[in-house]
């Protein structure tokens, strides 16, 4: 590690000697190459991005856009290390978890002049990406969480999908399917007992929040969270409705009855695979709710061609291209959030699924938890929650411990 750090330090030094990594547009004459970092290497996505870039090149022959797909696990780390090394991308996707850090840090160029018809953007979608009323990043993907159900596995276990779609009933069904089929019941995708922010798709059903809206007060030790986590703990260790810690199960490989995932995961389903359906998140004791995950698109001040990058962002996010991107990434444009537009782009989803999960989800959805300094807070919460993930854990005491650990960080 010390060697790695040294390598970067040296690179940074050599870079400053060679005067690279400047933020001005000295290179706007002559051909330029813009680099956009993404976390998707999905060939269908890449093909679409490349076709948008190719179309842009016909009107801007000097500009080539390269899409640089980075692994999502270390995405933010990789981007910030590139920035530190003087090799900042011109345009970067930003995960919602690190949105407050990027938006508040001043690392991004305001995009207000780079978005066509900005009034069309849904306020719920842009809230996270604004600083002092200025749009710092464009939420190109606003993807609600829903529950994918493997109807074949349910049939095999003799279980019908509960019509009264509550957490109580969902967990009971998952538990029965797991017991009868030997597969797993319900998987909260990408949670894996590490990325607890995905649990917001569960605890919001109890009206629980990780922290208050102003980000200053810890919510883990409050009653709604205690109730939600007690329910979840029981579902895992008594009902065996969710896979135990360290057990890997992929819904899309047919290994579980249900999964909570973003609707953009529909692309992982095969046309001739198992039978499936998509339903909204189950209702909790505090009623119906929905949760959305977002991806933003920002222009970095430290990129070499910031104004050319902003130009391209304008094109990439235009209504026409937004409609094309809608087949993978639900758009923030209200005019495009109709079952008709989305149906064209998502042939696998039925109109009522789109209406129930996507359109209503985006309208009422709350974005997954985020905070400035989120990496450190998330790490502290994760470490604090670890004692919860074993049978017989003292739920209120563990949650109190989480608050003790993160309260100083929330105050920063």
């Amino acid at each position: 590690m010390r060697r790695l750090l040294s390598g970067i330090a040296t690179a940074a030094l050599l870079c400053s000697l060679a005067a690279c990594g400047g933020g001005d547009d000295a290179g706007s004459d002559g051909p330029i190459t813009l680099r956009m970092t993404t976390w998707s290497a999905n060939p269908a996505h890449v093909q679409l991005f490349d076709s948008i870039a190719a179309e842009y090149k016909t009107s801007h022959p000097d500009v080539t856009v390269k899409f640089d797909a980075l692994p999502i696990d270390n995405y933010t780390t990789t981007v910030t290390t590139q920035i530190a090394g003087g090799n900042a991308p011109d345009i970067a996707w930003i995960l919602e978890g690190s949105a407050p850090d990027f938006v508040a840090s001043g690392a991004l160029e305001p995009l207000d002049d780079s978005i066509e018809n900005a009034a069309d953007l849904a306020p719920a979608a842009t809230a996270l990406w604004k600083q002092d009323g200025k749009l710092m990043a464009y939420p190109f993907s606003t993807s609600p969480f829903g529950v994918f159900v493997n109807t074949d596995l349910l049939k095999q276990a003799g279980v019908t999908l509960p019509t009264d779609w509550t957490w109580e009933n969902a967990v009971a069904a998952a538990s029965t399917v797991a017991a009868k089929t030997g597969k797993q019941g319900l998987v909260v995708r990408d949670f894996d007992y590490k990325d607890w922010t995905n649990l917001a798709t569960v605890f919001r059903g109890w009206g629980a929040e990780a922290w208050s809206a102003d980000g200053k007060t810890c919510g883990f030790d409050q009653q709604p969270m205690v109730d939600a986590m007690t329910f979840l703990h029981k579902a895992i260790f008594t009902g065996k409705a969710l896979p135990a810690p360290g057990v890997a199960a992929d819904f899309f490989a047919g290994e579980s009855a249900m999964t909570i995932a973003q609707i953009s995961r529909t692309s992982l389903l095969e046309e001739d695979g198992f039978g499936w359906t998509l339903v909204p998140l189950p209702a909790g004791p505090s009623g119906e709710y929905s949760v959305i995950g977002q991806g933003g698109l920002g222009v970095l001040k430290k990129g070499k061609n910031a104004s050319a990058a902003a130009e391209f962002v304008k094109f990439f996010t235009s209504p026409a291209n937004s409609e094309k991107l809608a087949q993978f990434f639900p758009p923030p444009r209200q005019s495009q959030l109709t079952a008709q537009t989305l149906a064209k782009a998502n042939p696998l989803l039925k109109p009522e699924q789109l209406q129930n999960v996507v359109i209503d989800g985006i309208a009422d959805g709350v974005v997954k938890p985020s905070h400035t300094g989120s990496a450190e807070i998330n790490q502290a919460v994760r470490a604090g929650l670890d004692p919860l993930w074993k049978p017989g854990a003292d739920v209120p005491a563990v949650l109190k411990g989480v608050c003790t650990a993160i309260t100083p960080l929330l105050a920063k």
Partner: protein
Amino acid sequence: MSGGSALIRRRYWTTRRRDQLTAYVFITPALFGSLVFVFLPLVLVVWYSLHEWNVLADTFNFVGAENYRKLADDPNVPAVLRATAFFSIGLVVLNLALALLLAVLLNQKLRGTTVFRVLFFSPVVVSLLAWTIVWGFLLQDNGGINGLLDTIGIDGPNWLRSGGTAMASVVVVQVFKNVGLNMVLFLAALQGVPQDLYEAARTDGASPWTIFRRITLPLISPTILLTSIITVVGSLQVFAQISVLTQGGPGTSTTVLVYYLYQQAFQFHAFGYGATLSVLLFLIVLALTVLQWQMRKRWVFHEH
């Protein structure tokens, strides 16, 4: 051209000076490499540790000893140092003991020892990441290890997810990975012990244990010193194993110093504080190496 100046030049370029010049020319690439990639970064890391450096916000402010004060007050540091010590001590003790045991066993003149030597050495040449990832699967709650235990009626723990077993599992995975290297070094040392000493001892009626303690151990002590230094320094640099197997959890039970440094610098964007932690790591490695080097005077046997 007068003969005088040629004479002076000849006198200046004496054989000694020529040799020196040649030597410097030869070591220049290596010297340049160590300056640019070892000494310069070392100095820079100390310099960075005196700054608050947030990459995202693009701030680089001199804060003096602030990061060192933060280090002294950081509530995580005691736990991190405990985890580091646990890993290093566990690894060094297990690794050296097992390596020595294997070396002694495989130093017998029996059929098939070559096969076993190859078997125990082969993990050393396996890619560290591949090795660790496969062990990660084996140690899952429903993984291979527990499946094996299940057949003999034992309900194995969730190795990597419970506080009591996570660090021990990481240590054992690392011991199996590298024990072969120390084993080979010990084997070479054992075979360097003169046979006539053994014969003389046996003639005098010494028991095998006495022979091992009084002859073998002293004669291979330089190798024990070497392997212990290599293993201690290596153990303090453990990163990939932690990153793949536990990400520092559960809780902070496997957050060793290098992993904590990585979290601070690369995940929490606090490069200045990360540099401070790496200064601490440097001092620990330095202190341990000096200590071991001093101890060699007490217990390492030298023939000459």
